[in-house]
């Protein structure tokens, strides 16, 4: 059925753009690569795919392929709604050239285009925002670090002349409040520029990328086994999701399957990760609402889950679980019982805490109608994860692109058409406020517990990893790996180089998609509610800044 759909799509696209397309290649079972003749038609084809084929732009990848006889290659990755297909529009761009911006047709492209301009020096023609994004004003804007001719050990002199222009909001009684990049408490850096009238926020501008670590460039120097460790460190609390997405991309390139037991262990760890992080976020929401008692109860549960992680993987934040081709360590019968007992205890306590929180009118009142996101904004910005699901956008990578062991699990709870419609009606009813996000996190925790039970009950006897994967990697093949972290869809695009090195590694975590939504979410809220809105969206600085 899948290939039939793929053919249909291919025909539809070819009908429209026969003369502009040089080739359409199906690849890695669910990717359709559309190779363009020239880059003048980028805008038309992308808009057609976006609006007529009902696909979201999920990532833009640029890679410098001049060394292998090509130019800069730009890939626009689209995801069909409720269908396991990625449409990838591929175009070649001249060195120091430009490409037409699609930001005015597809809003979610504007950040990717700015990122590509910073990292590769290719100019998105027509993108209204000409300010740097990833590399701040102190970076020499003639140096583009992801080009192959930029050496990792280069020292780049500081450029102190440039200034960053924030958007100016003018008018009587409008005050600017700059917050950050250094914040109180132990959190990461990010600058927020509020324009307020009294307490009411009329505009918010975020400036991020203060913790830019050069992950993508670092990976190009690394052996593939080490790159797994690097991917774990993109964001400490998404270590399983990121390394899983990376390993899956590499495994796809090798065209080999990994053992079922390894897939199951990966799924268990991914769900453990989701659980402890959701508990932590709920505790954070409670803290920021000024309700320390609820927060401490929830933090106790988070701590129990992290201690469980340590017993299972030897790491409180689940580092070192995934290796290419499988997993590093097994889950013994004894460990299995420990997991089941602990999550049983935690779920029981969790219900008690929830009952208390839900009855606390002062707490619920803080969340209700705070940080409301409009559905249109969320779909324009290609929001993912909980935030999207709370405004009625039904996306969950585990369901949309079943990966690893998820196809064998009951991820989609709504099997009958009636249940499905009921579910969709429920989705439409969600308000998109902090309370909706709170409730959905609670629901996801119990779903995760069910998934862990389901997986562990059916643990197959099998080896832990497939060692052939690493031997079977051919240079310059590429694949897309994906995973649903607790924040939402995580995409890793990997292109292999010679001798099992990485030629290009592009990461897009859920935070990158969701950060722009905070600028919409706080509008018409008051300044004092900002920390609460921020926490309820649960955005990662590190995962965004790479």
């Amino acid at each position: 059925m899948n290939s039939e759909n793929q053919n249909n799509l291919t025909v539809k696209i070819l009908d429209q753009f026969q003369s502009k397309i040089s080739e359409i290649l199906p690849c890695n079972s669910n990717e359709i690569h559309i190779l363009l003749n020239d880059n003048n038609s980028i805008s038309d084809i992308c808009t057609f795919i976006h609006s007529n084929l009902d696909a979201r732009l999920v990532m833009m990848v640029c890679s410098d392929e001049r060394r292998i006889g090509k130019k800069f290659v730009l890939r626009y990755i689209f995801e069909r709604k409720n269908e396991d297909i990625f449409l990838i529009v591929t175009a070649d761009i001249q060195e120091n050239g430009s490409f037409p911006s699609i930001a005015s047709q597809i809003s979610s492209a504007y950040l990717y285009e700015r990122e590509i301009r910073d990292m590769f020096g290719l100019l998105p023609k027509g993108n209204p925002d000409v300010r740097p994004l990833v590399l701040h004003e102190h970076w020499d804007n003639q140096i583009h670090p992801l080009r192959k001719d930029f050496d990792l050990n280069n020292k780049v002199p500081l450029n102190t002349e440039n200034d960053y222009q924030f958007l100016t909001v003018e008018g009587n009684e409008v005050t600017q409040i700059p917050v950050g990049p250094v914040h109180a408490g132990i959190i990461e850096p990010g600058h927020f520029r509020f324009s307020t009238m009294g307490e009411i926020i009329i505009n918010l501008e975020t400036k991020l990328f203060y913790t830019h670590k050069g992950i993508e460039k670092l990976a190009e120097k690394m052996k593939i086994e080490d790159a797994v460790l690097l991917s774990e460190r993109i964001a400490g609390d998404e270590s399983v999701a990121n390394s899983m997405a990376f390993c899956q991309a590499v495994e796809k390139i090798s065209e080999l399957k990994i053992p079922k037991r390894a897939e199951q262990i990966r799924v268990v760890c991914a769900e453990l990760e989701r659980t402890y992080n959701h508990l932590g976020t709920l505790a954070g929401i409670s803290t920021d609402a000024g309700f320390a008692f609820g927060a401490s109860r929830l933090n106790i549960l988070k701590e129990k889950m992290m201690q469980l992680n340590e017993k299972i993987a030897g790491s409180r934040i689940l580092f070192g679980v995934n290796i290419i081709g499988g997993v590093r360590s097994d889950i013994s019968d004894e460990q299995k019982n420990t997991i089941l007992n602990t999550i049983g205890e935690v779920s029981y306590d969790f219900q008690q805490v929830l009952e208390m929180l839900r009855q606390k009118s002062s707490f619920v009142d803080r969340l209700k109608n705070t940080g409301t996101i409009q559905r249109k904004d969320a779909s324009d910005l290609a929001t993912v994860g909980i935030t999207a699901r709370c405004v009625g956008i039904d996306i969950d990578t585990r369901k949309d692109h079943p990966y690893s062991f998820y196809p064998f699990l009951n991820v989609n709870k709504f099997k009958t058409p009636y249940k499905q419609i009921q579910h969709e009606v429920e989705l439409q009813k969600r308000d998109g406020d902090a309370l909706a996000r709170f409730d959905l996190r609670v629901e996801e925790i119990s779903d995760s517990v069910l998934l862990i039970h389901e997986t562990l009950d059916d643990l197959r006897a099998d080896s832990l990893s497939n060692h052939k994967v690493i031997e079977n990697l051919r240079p310059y093949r590429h694949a897309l790996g994906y995973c649903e972290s607790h924040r939402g869809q995580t995409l890793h695009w990997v292109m292999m180089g010679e001798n099992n090195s990485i030629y290009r590694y592009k990461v897009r975590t859920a935070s990158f998609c969701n950060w722009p939504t905070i600028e919409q979410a706080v509008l018409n809220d008051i300044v004092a509610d900002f920390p609460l809105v921020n926490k309820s969206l649960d955005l990662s600085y590190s995962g965004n800044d790479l």
Partner: protein
Amino acid sequence: MFADFNATRVILGVLQAFLLVLFAPLITGIMKKVKARTQKRVGASIFQPYYDIIKLIKKDETVSEQSSWVFRLNPWINFVAITTATLFVPVVMAYSPFGIAGDILLILGLYGLARFFLILAGLDVSSVFGGLGSSREMMMSSIVEPAIFIMVLSVAIVYGGTDVSTIVNSAAQSPLLIPTTIFAAISLFIIILAETGRLPFDNPATHLELTMIHEAMVLEYSGKSLALIEWSKSIKQITLLALLINIFVPFGISSDVSALTLGLGLISFVIKAVLFGILIAFLETRVAKWRLFRIPDLIAIAIASSLIGTTIFYIG
């Protein structure tokens, strides 16, 4: 009145004020400990506020170049105003020898002075958070102060005057439960929560500058100045608690100058102050911080409560 003005009483009056100043950080420490225990944390020692003050006094100060004398003088004005106010509050004995110099309205005036300078200091450093805190404090105080005056007046009509000694003396001789005073007590309790920056008005434990009220104004202080600010805050809290205790639950307070009754008065005051501190701390663990713009609702309850009390006094 002048007949009562003798040396022993003056010394005792000064001593009881001194007691409040010394005892103040301990109440803060006890409240923090109670909060920590209810959150299943061990918490710092109840003497931690003293250690903090000592540590801060030893430290250097950083003062913004943008600031003026207002910023540097404010901690002293605050400390002096708030400490002076303690002289007029009966603590152990139902009498304050300085009653001739001022009544309960003077206490409120001194608090007003302290607050005025605190707000100015918040604006003075020209940091955004200071301004944010100052504007919020102005919003709060513009509704809290009327609430205090209405509460004071409803007490005054019951006990015949605004002089604190008179009020406490007649309260000590009256039956405990008069409807008017019950309503006034509810009102004063809410006012204390607002005045001392407690939940649900303000979160004293938060690190989030954007949500702060009181803390945002004093964010720029360090060293000795911060020690004074923290200490003044504790003293103000215990002084208000002393008013609440001695106006509304005065039993046990000493009405003459004998060692036995003074001792009893001291013990009963300490017990009552600690109990009220624990009550407030418990309340703080049971409630989330309210939305900023819902705070006036709560103060409106305080005003309404005093007004109902007054009405009942005239009807009953």
